[in-house]
């Protein structure tokens, strides 16, 4: 500790980073974004005070940075400093009293840290000053882009290709938030796995767009939802008290949040009790009954329908979790007016039409009873899916398995991809993009070659 303080003094005197003593080894990354608050997290190689300097103008922040530390920054008008108590290598700073839908510039640390440019894959030469935009006020519509990654964490070239295709696709259009559908870091969801598979893979997105993850079975190897302990729970700061909208769940394992006119529901399909009298289902019912948003998007790891690298008809597959999510949770989700259900686990892309009421195994699927609207939901062919804006139970949802952001199924032994509830199925690596503009939702699946393999629209009237 003493040597670091001495070196810090040297920095202030000389204004050069040669003597910087700490290195940012992870992040920054953004959590629990609300219109008026943001949690900023990062890791350093040595313990120090957790400080975030932020403001509305880059120039002022740059000037503050030149002064050398967070204390000096407070002396510049319009530049604020937030600190957490104590010293740590794991930094969690909660910024409050922010303005909705506003771009902020921010810098983490005392200004003496080295950025992790050596390990950052998507943006070498990380700027010391980053930006984020706070979510808009909850309720009114605002065009929103969501990046959805299922089972990304292989750390391999496929994961990189999927990432780069999305970056090219979105270009300068900001990602308002991104979802991880579980199996975020292979093979065991350890801290090292997360470092390579998430923090060194997506540093640019991590520091600019709030991340909302779900727990997968591989993450569950190093985490425990009942005890809320382990790597996943250490790494992420998630709402337990309805801080970002929705009803308090009392746990980070499952939660909900609002963004503009969208309500998101994250479930833990892997490690939380999935029975009808369990806390998660009770919470889900209360949460869905309480929301007023135009759109409800639910996401979790284990799919309700799949014939990809997993088989939702097979009781022994994944310990029966797919059965549970289909038979116990899906009826509640559909009754609660959920519009889109995003899952992973199966390393393929599969997508249903507008469905309702199919809670059995695939032989019981009856298109006449379970398909609310036929067709592929594309404006240029079969027409978009249409739902009433009024919150109606069982008005139909589109189930999307998008679990190939890190790898697809074996090419030598391709998965069957023949679930009758799914009208589009691909054994392609890729990720999904959701754009919501008012009462219109568009989902696009991009493969690792940059091809737009599937798309559909839901329009509410």
């Amino acid at each position: 500790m003493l040597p670091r303080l001495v070196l810090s003094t040297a920095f202030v005197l000389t204004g050069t980073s040669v003597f910087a003593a700490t290195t940012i080894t992870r992040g920054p990354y953004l959590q629990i974004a609300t219109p008026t608050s943001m949690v900023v997290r990062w890791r350093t190689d040595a313990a120090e005070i957790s400080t975030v300097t932020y403001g509305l103008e880059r120039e002022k922040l740059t000037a503050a940075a030149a002064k050398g530390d967070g204390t000096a920054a407070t002396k510049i008008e319009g530049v604020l400093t937030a600190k957490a108590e104590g010293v740590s290598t794991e930094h969690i700073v909660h910024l409050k009293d922010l303005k909705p839908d506003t771009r902020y510039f921010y810098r983490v640390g005392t200004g003496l840290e080295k950025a992790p440019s050596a390990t950052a894959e998507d943006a070498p030469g990380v700027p010391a000053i980053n930006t984020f935009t706070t979510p808009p006020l909850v309720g009114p519509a605002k065009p929103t882009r969501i990046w959805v990654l299922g089972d990304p964490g292989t750390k391999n070239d496929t994961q990189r290709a999927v990432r780069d295709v999305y970056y090219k696709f979105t270009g300068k259009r900001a990602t308002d938030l991104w979802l991880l559908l579980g199996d975020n870091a292979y093979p065991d969801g350890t801290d090292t796995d997360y470092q390579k598979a998430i923090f060194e893979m997506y540093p640019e997105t991590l520091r600019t767009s709030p991340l909302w993850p779900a727990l997968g079975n591989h993450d569950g190897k190093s985490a425990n939802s009942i005890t809320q302990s382990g790597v996943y729970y250490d790494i992420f700061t998630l709402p337990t008290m309805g801080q970002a909208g929705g009803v308090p769940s009392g746990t980070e394992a499952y939660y909900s949040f609002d963004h503009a006119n969208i309500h998101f529901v994250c479930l833990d399909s892997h490690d939380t009790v999935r029975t009808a009298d369990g806390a998660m289902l009770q919470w889900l019912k209360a949460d869905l009954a309480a929301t007023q948003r135009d759109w409800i998007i639910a996401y979790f790891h284990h799919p309700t329908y799949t014939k990809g690298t997993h088989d939702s008809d097979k009781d022994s597959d994944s310990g029966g979790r797919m059965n549970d999510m289909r038979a116990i949770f899906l009826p509640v989700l559909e009754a609660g007016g959920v519009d889109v259900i995003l899952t992973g686990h199966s390393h393929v892309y599969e997508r249903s039409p507008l469905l309702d009421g199919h809670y059995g195994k695939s032989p019981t699927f009856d298109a006449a009873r379970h398909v609310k609207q036929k067709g592929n939901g594309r404006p240029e062919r079969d027409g978009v899916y249409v739902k009433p804006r009024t919150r109606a139970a069982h008005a139909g949802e589109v189930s999307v398995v998008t679990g190939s952001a890190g790898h697809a199924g074996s090419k030598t032994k391709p998965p069957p991809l023949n679930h009758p509830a799914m009208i589009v199925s691909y054994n392609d690596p890729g990720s999904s993009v959701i754009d919501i503009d008012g009462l219109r939702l568009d989902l696009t699946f991009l493969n690792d070659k940059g091809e737009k393999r599937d798309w559909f629209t839901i329009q509410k009237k």
Partner: protein
Amino acid sequence: MALRSRSRSVVMLLALAAAPLGAHPETPEARAEFDRLIAEFPNEPDLRLRRAEHRIESREFDAAESDLRHARLLAPRDPRILVAYASLALAREQPEVARQRLAVALSLAPGDPSAHILRARASARLGEAAAAHADYSAALAALPEPSPDLYLARAALPVAPELALRGLDEGIARLGPAAALVERALALELQLGRTDAALARLDALAAGAERKETFLKRRGDILAAAGRAADARVAYSRALDLIAAQPQWLRESPATAQLAAELRRLISPSR
């Protein structure tokens, strides 16, 4: 011995990390790779333990037991293996066997929350509520951030409702007004005939909801059931007022229209 074992573990973990079983151990290819690794590192208890856990999940109980037996020979004092043995016994509907294993595991690792939780489940299956309650309480005390499900499981034991309520309130104090805990507490208050306490629980639930009309309807129902008809009508009327203030698209939704019709009927039954 410990050092040798650790370096072997490092080699094994490196091999694991590179192996395709990083995909999904449930798939045949990944399972085959698991088998290959165990053939390569036959004396690695962690590998045996992990395969046993997957086998328990896949309900391959005999194969899981074989792995656990082997693992225990390699690491006889590893409590994780005993906990896995107990999981296997519970999966096989042998709660008494599970309890015996967990007693040993807890003697090796006192206070281990996972062992306490499993033993609580075993005791509950044996109908020994007091023992289960004690183990859940021990686990909850040991965990900094326990899941609401643990509080629910403890409250679901056949114990006095007052004791169950105290346990739920302990959870609400630690975790905040988690919907599942408040709902269960509300049900217990009603069971005890404590109407006002139940209404206070309902208010706690409604505080986190944007659509309070459904909670006011419930409030009215609770009051009506308690014979407080006038108070019930006030609650129903307030619910109708809130519906009238909703945006048109929500006010005209089938569910809301149905609720409004029911509220009007409850306020003026003769209509």
